[in-house]
């Protein structure tokens, strides 16, 4: 037993070693290149210094566009997620429907946002529109699932009580189901908006609008000092969003 365990351990180690060696062999990783890159990195960074403050208008415009992408993307996701969430809920839809819709939502979640954004740029051209569509599509994968869970998490007893009192289906949905799921839906939507805002910052790198677009533009045109300003702005925005997230978590827990 112990002997075979030792063999198994040796074999596992050998496999891992082979995987790592294979990765080096095919990745063009040379230590010499990394060392000689030192001065180049210093030069690159020095060209970013000092950051060019004249791009403040672009930063403000880009941030506003990112915000618009996140807002409209979230709105689109909410509109798509309400019917999909209903269809994915165990209590509202028969098994065939809710299982297939759940699989669909999982597939949507599995496609990276940047990939969707690139495809959308190809389909509708540069600008905020592909970003909005990509965010709406990508966020629906998560929001639809969360809405379904909000519906399924509702307590049944008050619904049955209203049915016993003669209240119709719509009245039960409005007065027994909705009051129970509304806070969950609000929380999930706000958290998804925060995530959308975070993800929209870099959408511009693939041409889908927002502040990330300026990073890409300035790096490609070798205006590293301007790129540095925009990068700093993005870092500050990420910190601000992180603060928002902490505040939200405190509020909702």
């Amino acid at each position, binding site marked *: 037993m112990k002997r075979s365990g030792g063999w198994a351990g040796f074999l596992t180690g050998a496999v891992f070693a082979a995987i790592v060696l294979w990765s080096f062999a095919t990745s063009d990783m040379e230590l010499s290149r990394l060392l000689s890159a030192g001065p180049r990195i210093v030069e690159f960074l020095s060209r970013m210094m000092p950051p060019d403050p004249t791009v403040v208008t672009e930063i403000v415009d880009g941030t506003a566009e990112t915000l618009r992408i996140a807002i409209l993307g979230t709105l689109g996701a909410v509109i798509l997620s309400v019917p999909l969430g209903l269809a994915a809920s165990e209590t509202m839809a028969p098994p065939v429907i809710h299982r297939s819709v759940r699989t669909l939502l999982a597939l949507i979640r599995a496609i990276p946002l940047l990939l969707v954004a690139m495809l959308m740029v190809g389909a509708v051209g540069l600008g905020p529109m592909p970003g909005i569509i990509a965010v709406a599509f990508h966020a629906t994968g998560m929001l639809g699932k969360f809405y379904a869970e909000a519906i399924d998490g509702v*307590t049944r*007893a*008050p619904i*049955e*009580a*209203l*049915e*016993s*009192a*003669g*209240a*119709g289906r*719509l*009245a039960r949905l*409005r*007065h*027994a189901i909705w*009051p*129970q799921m*509304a*806070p969950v839906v609000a929380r999930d939507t706000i958290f998804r908006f925060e995530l959308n805002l975070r993800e929209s910052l870099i959408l511009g790198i693939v041409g889908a609008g927002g502040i990330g677009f300026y990073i890409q533009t300035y790096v490609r045109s070798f205006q590293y000092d301007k790129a540095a300003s925009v990068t700093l702005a993005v870092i500050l925005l990420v910190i601000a969003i992180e603060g928002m997230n902490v505040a939200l978590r405190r509020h909702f827990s």
Partner: protein
Amino acid sequence: MTRVVDIDDLDFAHAGADLPALEGVGLGVEAGEAVVLLGPSGAGKTTLLAILDGRLHGWTGRVSVLGRPLSPDAPPPAAARPDIGFIFQEFALVERSSVLRNVLNGRLGRMSTFAALLGRHSVHDLDVAHQAMADCGIGELTHRRVDSLSGGQRQRVAIARCLAQEPRLILADEPVSNLDPARAGEILTLITRAAAKRGATTIFSSHQPELALRVASRVVGMTVGRIAFDHPVGDVSEQEIAALYRNVAQDWPIEAELRLVQ
């Protein structure tokens, strides 16, 4: 005069259960009575009340409520349901809504689909709701959220919602089992008085005989899905009541075990 409740030879078994929940039950209740169903857990009280409320199907026999025969496999028409009020053991309130909203929920069955969806209540609806809350002693809690209330207060909200329905028959399943004895007495008195004031008939279940006998006009004893006795409240003997519970302690488990062995 037609009876409020007329049950004849009612049988019911829960899916997959070895013992029937109700067996050969017959019961007639006249308008204005306050009937208590006494008996231990598993006697069939909850099952019987759920059938009368039109929520439980798959039974056999004949059941009429308020002069309308119930279907054994479909809920009553929506228009008939507000006439039968139900007070649930676990209250079944919408926790995040206000007291008033929960009480007004009792009116939804008497409104048009559209008005009910939008919650556009008439002045009459509000009057009925406020009267129900006043009768239940929760007039000052109108705008409180239910999840901020105590158990006793919640039970009063549940009763007010039922009264707001303006039911002709009030069914209550163990309405005081979650309350201490002092509160339980108050609540049972409240239900039967409010029902009497509105000319409604009451059927409630309880396993606290001493409290129930103080407010009921008639006592129906149940064990293992059968009616053991059925008397006006003055004719019930302590021995009869004690026998209901003794059966559980001795005979029932043996009978159940024998059936399980088979």
